[in-house]
């Protein structure tokens, strides 16, 4: 039986193909991880999904008010990141680019389904796709009353945030719930930093007025 022996010198002469591991990615900038993905390292993509999955799903959820749809749209966001790996340019922060994709998808979805949402009907015997619960009906217990008040407040918050003009709504969602700074929000919405500040100020003033009774 023949045996194959590999000279140790051959292995040292092999070109070094090294892919970063998840541990390395923590030390790296997101843009650099995208370059790893461009080079074919799918572990970079997994890391970015892991890092941004929750914030993007939450952002989408607050835009579309439906968990299943928000997850589908979030998947679409990550698929677009994957598709754009070849053409990606590190000209802006990765998170800014990601939220820009998410914002566009969310706005398009909201426009496409505007008619459906306006004609929605509540069925008391059906589970709400948004919350996974059946609608509350009148109950005599104190707990139920508190719960209804809380639901009413939550409904008002959603309704008034949703009723804000499109850009103000996006700015509030990114600022309040995703913790993006003025510059990042400005980059996503293509606005200057001062214009973003003013946009947010108007939005919060509007919400202050409309939610006065719940404060």
């Amino acid at each position, binding site marked *: 039986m023949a045996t194959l022996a590999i000279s140790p010198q051959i292995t040292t002469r092999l070109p070094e193909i090294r892919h970063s591991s998840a541990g390395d990615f923590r030390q790296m900038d997101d843009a650099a991880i995208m370059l790893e993905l461009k080079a074919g390292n799918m572990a970079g993509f997994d890391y970015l999904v892991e890092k941004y999955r*929750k914030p993007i799903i939450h952002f989408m959820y607050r835009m579309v008010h439906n968990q299943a749809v928000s997850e589908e749209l979030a998947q679409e966001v990550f698929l677009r990141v994957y598709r754009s790996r070849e053409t990606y*340019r590190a000209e802006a922060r990765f998170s800014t*680019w990601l939220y820009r994709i998410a914002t566009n998808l969310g706005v398009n979805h909201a426009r496409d389904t505007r008619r459906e949402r306006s004609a929605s009907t509540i069925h008391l015997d059906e589970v709400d796709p948004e919350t*996974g619960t059946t609608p509350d009906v009148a109950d005599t217990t104190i707990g139920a009353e508190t719960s209804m008040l809380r639901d009413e407040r939550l409904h008002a918050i959603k309704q008034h945030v949703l009723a804000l003009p499109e850009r103000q709504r996006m700015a509030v969602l990114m600022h*309040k*719930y995703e913790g993006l700074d003025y510059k990042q929000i400005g980059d996503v919405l293509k606005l200057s930093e001062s214009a973003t500040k*003013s946009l947010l*100020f108007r939005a919060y003033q509007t919400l202050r007025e409309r939610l006065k009774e719940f404060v």
Partner: protein
Amino acid sequence: MICRDCKSVLPDLLLDPASPSNTAAQAHVDSCSECRAELNELQATFALLDEWTAPEPSAYFDQKLAVRLREEQTASPAGWFERLRSRLLFNTGRQFRPAFAAALAVVLLIGGGTIADLHMHTSAPATSAAITDLQVFDKNDQALQTMDQLVQDEGSSDDPVVEPIS
């Protein structure tokens, strides 16, 4: 600091009250009850918005994404039109800025040149005040001559007919 200036920085104060840039605003709020009330209301509204929580991602998110990713990897690559559309829709637009600036410069040059050219052709030649005065005098003179002519014509028709002396 006046109330109007303070109101414009209230969101900053709301989010980062300890920031050195907000010292003046904070001092104003401490001394102005109206601005303090507004800041308190904004803080309460901001806290109220926290009640809107989003559900945790479902356990199947990663699996579904993996399936869609595999489909994506096996599918034929997107056409140039789709790629261009995606780039236009989802990028920040920064790479187009030099081209946009150049296009704007060209438009300004062409537009400015056209307007200047039109202006040169359409504007009436400027006349000085002296020429205007002379034109007025000339018109007055003509009017006086016309009036003299009329007076003379009238005078000649009113003259009594002189009988020839026999």
